């Protein structure tokens, strides 16, 4: 049976008001919106989505949105300590987690219907009646600082490069201009009072969408909505997310770090997000050029399969963190501004410059030539069906349904099918010409010999590649063009930054 998919904006008390509509009554304040997916599954999934995130961090308090969410999901409520919560969740084999992005903070958990009452009571109190204890606060703050200092700066070059790319495109003054976790210097100064204030201001009924899926009992959704009316009413807040105009030309930031390889990320803003006219065309282009973790896409074939330069090469039109761990993107990372991005997985440093040139060469080729009829049709067929794989789990269906609510689109697989069926090759090639501009490329590179690479880029001398196995003549011929490919960057456009200074 097909899924019963409904989005309902439940106005509290609206049913009774409807029944007795004779006398005008005072209008009740709008309660939280809901996205409901009633299914037959005994697994009940919650996604409590607040339309607030790191874009709402006050200047000088970057990291506050993330820390506030962690104080709800990874800390005690007023009625239970964090240890008691963990102990209570052990026999239910469950948990409650949060994810914070620029404009969304989502709280996620799944329980078996047998435990619904107990589980719901715990998580309801965690969100509605947080404990805000000092010891929890110190722990989550230390975790946040360690995430920036240890996880991002010194143990994950790929994620580091991608996040640096975003900070190149969105300046520090822009709402998107810092990583979601914040900055080391601001995190260290944050207090529990900052968290309390952020919670009071942003955790409102107006910001909340209650997402619920599974075989929950009749009327349960109304009970949840009623409970969450305890939050302040609030007003819907929108941040100005439009990407700032990019200075034309190429800008490169090389993060210097002691590492065995060279990680490269390239990109620039595109003013199309899901639901807008040309987004499906751009999604086709990204899938063709570099479908995430797929061996059949174009860049992968050129750089990995033919040349063996690295482990994979992908392209995106939506934010996709944790790509080295995940095969499918996490939902609820809705943004009003996105970038087109190419992710070159780490290469041998001696082939770093060649690989950068190869990526730019292939990208330029795409912009110039567009897609062929054959690649367009097979990519379209793949993407239409892949939408089903993306929404395979109930939790993903709920997540995508919340995102559809955010973007104002039909349910995701249906949206993709409809849009793709209307799309023509001409639409796609027109979108390539319109949105994929080569003249404002931003590039983030993480490598050890940053100065050497900088000199190599600026000198524009040929950078031949070193292969470990024989290659066909046709590849070697094309390599001659690639190794001499001009990188149009001037001295001031190529900066070297020590890893210890990023996200400071």
């Amino acid at each position, binding site marked *: 049976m097909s899924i019963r998919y409904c989005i309902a904006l439940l106005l509290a008390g609206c049913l009774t008001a409807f029944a007795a509509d004779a006398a005008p009554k005072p209008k009740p304040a709008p309660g939280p919106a809901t996205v409901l997916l009633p299914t*037959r599954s*005994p697994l009940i999934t919650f996604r409590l989505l607040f339309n607030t995130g790191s874009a709402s961090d006050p200047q000088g308090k970057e990291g506050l949105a993330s820390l506030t969410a962690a104080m709800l999901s990874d800390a005690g409520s007023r009625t239970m300590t964090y240890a008691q919560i963990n102990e209570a969740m052990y*026999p239910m*084999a469950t948990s409650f987690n949060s994810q914070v992005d620029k404009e969304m903070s989502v709280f996620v958990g799944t329980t*078996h219907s047998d435990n619904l009452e107990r589980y719901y009571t715990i998580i309801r109190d965690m969100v509605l009646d947080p404990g805000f204890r000092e010891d929890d606060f110190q722990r989550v703050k230390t975790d946040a600082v360690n995430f920036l200092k240890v996880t991002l700066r010194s143990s994950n070059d790929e994620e580091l490069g991608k996040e640096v790319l975003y900070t190149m495109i969105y300046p520090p003054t822009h709402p998107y201009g810092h990583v979601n976790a914040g900055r080391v210097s601001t995190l260290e100064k944050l207090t529990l009072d900052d968290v309390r204030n952020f919670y009071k201001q942003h955790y409102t009924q107006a910001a909340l969408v209650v997402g619920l899926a599974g075989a929950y009992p*009749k009327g349960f959704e109304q009970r949840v909505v009623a409970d969450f009316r305890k939050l302040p009413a609030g007003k819907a807040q929108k941040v100005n997310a439009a990407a700032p105009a990019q200075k034309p030309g190429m800008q490169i930031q090389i993060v210097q770090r002691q590492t065995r390889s060279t990680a490269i990320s390239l990109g620039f803003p595109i003013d199309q997000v899901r639901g807008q006219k040309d987004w499906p065309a751009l999604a086709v282009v990204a899938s063709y050029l570099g479908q995430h973790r797929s061996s059949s896409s174009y860049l992968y074939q050129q750089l990995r399969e033919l040349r063996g330069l690295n482990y994979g090469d992908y392209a995106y039109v939506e934010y996709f963190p944790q790509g080295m761990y995940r095969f499918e993107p996490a939902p609820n990372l809705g943004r009003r501004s996105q970038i087109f991005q190419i992710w070159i997985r780490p290469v041998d440093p001696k082939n770093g410059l060649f690989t950068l040139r190869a990526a730019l060469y292939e990208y330029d080729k795409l912009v110039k030539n567009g897609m062929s009829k054959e690649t367009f049709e097979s990519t379209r067929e793949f993407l239409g*069906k892949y939408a089903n*794989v993306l929404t395979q789990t*109930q939790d993903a269906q709920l997540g995508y349904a919340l995102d559809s609510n955010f973007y104002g689109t039909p349910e995701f697989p249906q949206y993709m099918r409809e849009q793709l069926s209307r799309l023509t090759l001409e639409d796609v090639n027109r979108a390539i010409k319109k949105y994929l501009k080569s003249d404002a490329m931003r590039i983030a590179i993480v490598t050890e010999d940053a100065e050497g690479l900088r000199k190599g880029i600026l000198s524009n001398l040929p950078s031949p590649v070193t292969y470990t196995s024989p290659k066909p003549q046709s590849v070697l011929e094309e390599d001659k063009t690639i190794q001499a490919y001009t990188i149009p960057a001037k001295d001031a456009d190529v900066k070297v930054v020590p890893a210890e200074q990023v996200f400071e």
Partner: protein
Amino acid sequence: MKKFAVLMLALAVLCLYAAAQDSPAAPQEKKVFSYAYSIDDLPNGMRVITVPTDSPNLVALYMVVKTGSRNEVEPGKSGFAHLFEHLMFRGSKKYTPEQAEEVLRRAGASSNAYTTDDRTVYHAVFSKEDLDRMMDVQANAFQHLQYSRDAYKTETGAVLGEYNKNSANPISKLYEVLRETAYTKHTYSHTTMGYIKDIEDMPNLYDYSLEFYNRYYRPEYVTMLAVGDVQRDQVLALAKKHYGDWKRGSYVAQIPAEPPQTSPQVRHVDWPTPTLPWVVVAYRGAAYSDSDKQAAALDLLANLAFGQNSDLYQKLVLKEQKVATMDGGQDMRVDPELFAVMARVKDVKDVNYVRDQILATYKQFAETLVPADRLAATRSRMRYDFALSMDSSSAIAGALAPYIALRSTPETINRRYALYEQVSPEDIREAARKFFTEHNQTVVTLSTKANSSEKGGL
């Protein structure tokens, strides 16, 4: 055609609650595997299990073959079940490997296979409209597999490569030595990869590979599992269309019985390159059963004694930090399997200490009773852990596959979990007393060769 359908209620909690009011027997209806399913047997013996779910558009198609390294009974022929996991993608009379790949890609399919002691499982998840075409590709591989001598040699080379890759990992060696020490007659003495000398000989055994295919790739060994946006009638009709003409085989492997162990066994592996040392303490355990309480007691014990919430784990991993990782228990197997606890020790000088702590924990569970509340919490966690793992059609099929290979019906899951409910602290102590005896014990350690002088009498 023999045909029966098992229909179980898998409806909303509401329905369960309603039923509970109607019937006093209802509480027993609260099953850990609660999806409605149907079972149909084709006349040739192939079983078809269909599990319709709410999950839209997709279907997970699993082919469960009741053949694994356990079936490799002839000397010199270990590793063939796993080799077939590779050969099955080499094409058939109707489809070249490239044509088969193209069907998969156009279906947006995610597809793979795995082999264990008792089973080989071919799995794919794809859009429901491609069920007919996907089944056609698969049915052709199952019935009309075709590979040349050259292709066969290439694939045996890939398997040797896989062995070599795995051999860089000390766990592979540790496990290999554990198996060949603890079993003397039974085919569980070799791992699923097989003995290295057999793998090296594989390129010369093309004709034997055809024999192996002829024996085990037969309808009576195979169960088709279709889970997702599908209906029984549709799956059954397609199964008949693609597998109806498949001929039943006649081969039944005679698996040698393992005689009882009579004395404790100790082995040490010198590892040529730097590694953290390992210690494994194992006992002959129980075969899978959905009716034997002692086998069920061992599963609970594994969590209570050696799981992440256990006292030993808290002590060795978190408090003293002498152990990097620790895990224990036994897999579900057709014949009695080893109950093993494996620990990766941080410092070679602590290997004996860790071994003794593990031994003491085994002993403790044979002497004292576990607190009833901890047993209840663990039982509950296992139940819900299983239930929560089934969050998509392919996850449901994946969770079902091992049970289908063992008992051919999803119902065995409910019987097994119902058994957990009946296990008492006394049952756990009895099981520990029965299985964890000295003559039933095998201890294997592994450490870097340069450090062998520090082994301290291992």
